[in-house]
């Protein structure tokens, strides 16, 4: 079982700016961004493509360093990747050449734990995600949902302070996606592991989040911080409640505006979010 992550994983971005170069043109990507990811909470990051979500993840993960400002985790400055912050990527980044067991054991092995501890930890986490019978399979032999669970296990086994999930359920069919949302929420309720969750789907965001942070289109600034005080544990029926609908309606306008900006700038990938928003507003 995963232990309670206590109050670890307090991530603070203070005045963070980041530029990158596109066709030799300097583009401001994050503009003096100040965000707090409170420990033990599930924070969802939303915004159209081009709002700098990926940059933000890269910065927190330590793959890149900010041009100005600072990022700290539990008071310590982030300078390089470390297994206190684990990223779960879009689609899947499980190593296809390793069995599920070896994928999950990768972190503990790299840390140089004893063979016995590695086996024990890996097997116990695989049981938590319900993959104990699939540990000798290769990732390609698993269904999409199982792959995501294996990926969560590979991160969780390292007992990170914060989990960074970059559209982790992208590409799953609607049914599996909902099951995975429920699965992660259950895990979160049990462990209270600090989570930064990036998604394009507003329904997913509200269903999962304690806080939804919406970023603006180029450059990324905080547009709005939405608190989601819905009671936990949550069930899917929550989406029929009045509180949910209120939050939904407050948020969708803003999101639509930002997505529209991206769309007008001819950012084709913004179609993603527009389509998903359109679908949502048609439903409601």
């Amino acid at each position, binding site marked *: 079982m995963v232990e309670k992550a206590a109050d670890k994983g307090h991530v603070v971005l203070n005045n963070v700016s980041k530029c990158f170069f596109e066709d030799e043109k300097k583009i401001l990507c994050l503009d003096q961004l100040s965000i707090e990811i409170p420990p033990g909470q599930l924070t969802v990051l939303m915004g159209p493509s081009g709002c700098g979500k990926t940059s933000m993840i890269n910065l927190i993960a330590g793959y890149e360093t900010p041009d100005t400002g600072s990022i700290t985790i539990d008071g310590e400055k982030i300078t390089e*990747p470390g297994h206190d912050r684990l990223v779960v990527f879009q689609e899947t980044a499980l190593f296809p050449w390793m069995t599920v067991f070896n994928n999950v054991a990768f*972190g503990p092995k*790299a840390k140089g734990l004893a063979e016995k501890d590695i086996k024990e930890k890996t097997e116990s986490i695989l049981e938590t995600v319900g993959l104990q019978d699939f540990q000798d399979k290769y990732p390609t032999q698993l269904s999409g949902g199982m792959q995501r669970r294996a990926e969560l296990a590979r991160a969780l086994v390292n007992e990170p302070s914060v989990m960074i999930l970059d559209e982790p359920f992208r590409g799953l069919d609607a049914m599996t996606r909902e099951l995975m949302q429920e699965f992660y929420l259950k895990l979160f309720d049990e462990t209270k592991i600090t989570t930064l969750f990036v998604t394009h789907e507003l329904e997913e965001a509200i269903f999962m989040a304690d806080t939804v942070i919406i970023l603006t289109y180029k450059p990324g600034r905080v547009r709005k911080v939405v608190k989601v005080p819905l009671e936990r544990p949550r069930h899917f029926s929550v989406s029929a409640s009045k509180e949910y609908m209120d939050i939904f309606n407050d948020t969708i306008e803003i999101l639509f505006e930002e997505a529209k900006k991206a769309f007008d700038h001819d950012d084709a990938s913004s179609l993603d979010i527009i389509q998903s928003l359109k679908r949502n507003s048609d439903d409601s």
Partner: protein
Amino acid sequence: MTRIKNLAAAPTFYAALAGMILFFSSWYFLTETLTLPRFKNIPDPLSVVTEWSAIHPKYGVSLFTKPYYVDILYSIIRTYAAFAGAVVFGVSLGIVMGWSRILHNYTFPLVEIFRPMPPLSWIPLAVLVLPGIELPVVFVTFIAAFFATVLNTLLGVQSINRDYFLAAKCLGAKPRDILFHVVIPGSLPFIFTGLQIAMGIAWMSIVAGEIIAGQRGLGYYIYEAAALFQYEQVIMYMFTLGFLGYVSSVAIRYVGNLLMAWEEAKRKAR
């Protein structure tokens, strides 16, 4: 019409058999029945097989004579020595080039200039620089196989999804872990494609190499036999080279499948 279609879709063994029968009968037809002027000195398949399997062959070499196997052994040792060199040096250079941007920039244009140079063109320098007989032969066999291996390994490293590196780093992997658990397994499918190509190239180049050897080896005897107008021998040795190359390819595929069980799993999952 449907009968032809059915035949074309026959199980692989029968299809292969049909292809061979078609080829050998055309050969027989061209050399024996039609006897076109340019073809009339070429022995027909039957006389090649007869010579090949004769206990007392006309020209002294067949399946039942010792020199035949000595030649095969010489060629195998030379080719495999060259191939081993191509694997060791080619894979190493390919991985380093794929991994280090700087080294890639220094070496890639050079590799691309050297790669198309035919093995034959290396003979003068190989003889000039390398001592003895065997080293130049192996070098000429090695050189083209080496560049094929380098290029495919490089492509293999470059084909690895960037997320795998990021994931490994954030899971706490050190460069050594990344080399052995990400770079090498990740590029293995390309490496093995490269090795099959390299093995084919090595068997092609061995003939060029063995001209300079001046003694022993299948390639050398092809030239020797041609000079003596023993064309049955030429063809028999050509086919021997073909068989050895085929078996080598199968062996590489077999080893590759053993090492890449996940690829097999992927194919089955589809």
